[in-house]
């Protein structure tokens, strides 16, 4: 992930202050997120449901 995209996403997330004060941390966080998300293989079955399932009326 290049720096321009990171700056754009950081602004969208409202992290301008962090970007000004801790730019290295913001960049490290963005690269970490990209690496970890890329390590997940999406389920092959398009019908595979997420967990936890929606259960109407439970847990309210």
């Amino acid at each position: 992930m290049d720096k321009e995209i990171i700056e754009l996403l950081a602004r969208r997330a409202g992290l301008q202050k962090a970007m000004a004060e801790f730019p290295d941390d913001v960049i490290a966080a963005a690269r970490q997120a990209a690496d970890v998300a890329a390590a997940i293989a999406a389920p092959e079955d398009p019908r595979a449901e997420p967990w936890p399932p929606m259960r109407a009326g439970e847990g309210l």
Partner: protein
Amino acid sequence: MTDLHWLSVAEAADAIAARELSPVELMQALLARIEKLDPRLNAFITLDGDQALAAAQAAETEIAAGRRRGPLHGVPVGIKDIMDVAGLPTTCHSRILADNVATDDAVCVSRLRGAGAIVVGKLATHEFAIGGPSFDLPWPPARNPWNPDHHPGGSSSGSGSGVAAGLFPMALGSDTGGSVRNPASCCGIVGLKPTYGLVSRRGVFPLSFTLDHVGPMTRTVADNALMLEAIAGHDPLDPGSAASTPGHYGAALGRGVRGLRIGFVRHFHEVDTPAEPEVTAALQHVARSLQVAGAELRDVTLPTLAEFGAVNRVILQSEAWSIHAKWLRERPGDYARFSRRRLMAGAFMGAGDYVTAQRRRREMMAAVEAAFRDVDVLLCASSMDPACRIDHLEEVERTYRRQARTPFNVTGHPALAMMSGLSKGGLPLSVQFVGRYFEEATLFQVARAWEQASGMDRKHPPIG
């Protein structure tokens, strides 16, 4: 009687019930030990000595009047400082919540107090139960009693350090990616992450709603079962609480392992994340001992640690970002660098990443459930290394990832970590047992068999 600070919960309870030991005498002995050792260990954020002594006096009076509440009555407990104790600060070891005083007890704390346990204070954690040992916070990080130059594990670092050092016989920890079992592994004690939803999370500051667990940390397996019995049970006000009836978790403790089928997940430590040789040797020794005791050993294959880890982190960091976004936007400098980096990662996860992780999670749960059709308990590594030096931050980062605990936060199965031996350098090595959903009693049965065969409950750090 043995040194009071090494009494287990069960031993202290028996001595109190037999009027051979008063809760006040026990509390005084532990407070003296805390005064002596805590300046080196930093296990406490808030020590509540006066209240603890007053509660010990009240327990003594109640027991003398014939109103003993059970095996925890009069026994001290330490509480991780992300859990509310009425009247005490819940700082989460962070500047962000430095002035946050709890008005009510968390449900797990209230259940312990209802059973007669006495809160001795609030314990160090990694900031907000994430991050790592940080030296840029208002309180120092806890240290390992086996060698205070080393990391005690985390995030329930004060809980692990204090139980192992004999500052209190039991503590509460929380576990989102391994935070009960990591300090249990580093400090050589018993730490359980129960089945997801078995213990209420209400009153515990969240890190990740679908991964957070509260768990007991003790020096013996039997004590862990006693503590779980006190804190388990449905809470209608915790949306993740399971509709289960708590069991008698110590029921199978003396039964041994004859006839049990134990699945050895070797690929975790042999292929996915190769462990240090002494960790591998200790795991082989545990497996062999259980086999000699009558268990049937089978090899089991699960998804890889890399994939479990990625699913855990995408879910954890996405949910944690949702909790911390406002503070990270407005007060990023009030976080430690370690936790700031980890928490901000969630800002860069897409909604699709999160849902994909939750879909893959369901498949992983099914894979572990499928393994349990053929075995009763899984045996695998916990940490791939003994605890590293606490001031070597690159090494802390490196070893943090070298573990096999996150799979069972992803799947929600109960998992227990305990000591498997000692390294050449005199630091604890660890093993992990994993059970079917809500079958904590079987986990304790296997863990007790190993404890009995190895005498791990009698090994204490050379401190004090």
